[in-house]
């Protein structure tokens, strides 16, 4: 049961990731990325990482990709031209063969997965906010603070670069 949910979520994650790269409309790209993050959240929740699943949706789907959409709409990007439409039959055929091979490989892998799946999952406590919070402000405090410092530097750099013209 668990492995089938995992398999469905992963297959859809791969499919949505492909659409996110291949589709010609930027809005559809962003939306498939959102769906991809949802599938990833399902996988996280499945291995007991509830906190990561929620954070995945809050940070990526709820904030980062909204910013992407904001930029796409602000620039009013239209569909990419001259890509993917007809032509290039060889590339298309090779891509289809590769996709089918990868799909078959996934199914075969999943059929072997069934007996052992879930055997080495961490306990239910591991996925809550407590161990992650303890790790962040405990053993990894320096790295955590250092990253926040780097991010501030990056923000200042971005503001400086965008303001230089004015």
């Amino acid at each position, binding site marked *: 049961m668990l492995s089938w949910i995992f398999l469905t979520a992963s297959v859809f994650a791969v499919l949505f990731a492909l659409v996110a790269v291949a589709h010609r409309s930027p809005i559809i790209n962003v939306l498939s990325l959102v769906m991809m993050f949802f599938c990833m959240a399902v996988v996280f929740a499945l291995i007991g990482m509830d906190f990561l699943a929620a954070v995945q949706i809050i940070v990526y789907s709820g*904030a980062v990709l909204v910013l992407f959409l904001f930029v796409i709409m*602000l620039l009013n990007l239209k569909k990419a031209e001259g890509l993917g439409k007809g032509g290039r039959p060889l590339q298309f055929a090779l891509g289809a063969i590769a996709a089918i091979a990868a799909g078959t490989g996934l199914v075969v892998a999943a059929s072997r997965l069934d007996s052992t799946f879930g055997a080495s999952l961490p306990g239910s406590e591991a996925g809550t906010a407590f161990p992650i919070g303890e790790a962040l402000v405990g053993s990894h405090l320096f790295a955590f603070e250092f990253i926040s410092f780097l991010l501030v530097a990056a923000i200042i750099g971005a503001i400086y670069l965008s303001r230089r013209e004015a």
Partner: protein
Amino acid sequence: MWADLAVIGIKLAVVLGVLLTTVPIMVWVERRGSALIQDRLGPNRVGPMGLFQPVVDAVKLMTKENLIPENVDRFLYLLAPIIALIVALSTFIAVPFGFDSGLELFGQKIHGFIVAPDLNIGVLYIFAIASLAVYSIVLAGWSSNNKYSLYGGIRASAQSISYELAMTVSVVGVLMAAGSLQLQNVVTAQSGTWLGFLPRWGILVQPLGAITFIIAAFAETNRLPFDLPEAEAELVAGYHTEYSSMKFAAFFMSEYIHMVTSSALITIFFFGGWQLPWITLPGGWPGALLSIGIFGAKVAFFLWFFVWIRWTLPRFRFDQLMALGWKVMIPVAILNFLWVGVAMALHWI
């Protein structure tokens, strides 16, 4: 197994039923309330005090022509109202709306009437789902192929990101005081008294957090004074300009359902949830029903508060909105976060 499913089914049916019934009632309250505030009569022809007006409105919306304009992106245009309703309806399953001391139904524990009681990330789940609400607005604005809709969508995306930050930071203090992400623990952490006589409610212990959360809740539900995505004075009807009949109704309903969820969250985070100050509720079913009544009364007050504010304050300008969000709300929310940390370290709260 079956009793389990039955209990979950009953909870879901009750939650959905209450949410969807609140919408027409709130439409009536909104119209009559605005009339009261503006010294008008309001709708008073259909039924006693115009009470059946929402029914007539619903029939009108359902029987209207299902219009899809030319040159819209059909897939996204139809997807947007669906996302709006799904997101609005699914946030409520982590909300506890009553107290129980181990009551059972069909041999199953009812766990304080929450649909999903074992969700150990309760608050995060709600924020995760609620943060997706903006997609419906942005997609509606973009797919309509109309410049006013597009402006509405762009405004919605910028506004939502800005106020989500302030909203989540202002809740961190509450979660720290409760030591849990589960909403039922947030409520029980507000029982008892503080400094000897004050109820230990969030609004008294951390007023700054309460104020920022309430303001951010107005912005996240796109209600006046923050309804810039639809701003009818500038953008016709903003993101839903091109929507009619039930597709418009989906946006309309989702706004009111978001209001119910926001009111419930304000009640839970800062107003003690189902508790009354200085009074311990009796156990068993009487206590449980009483707690639901108290919670409902508090939520009803905040729903009225939403209407009250809408018809009292004018709309912000967009630059004022952004300045308020980034230069005032977020620093104040962080200040609240610091206050709770210091107060907890010194055992003041």
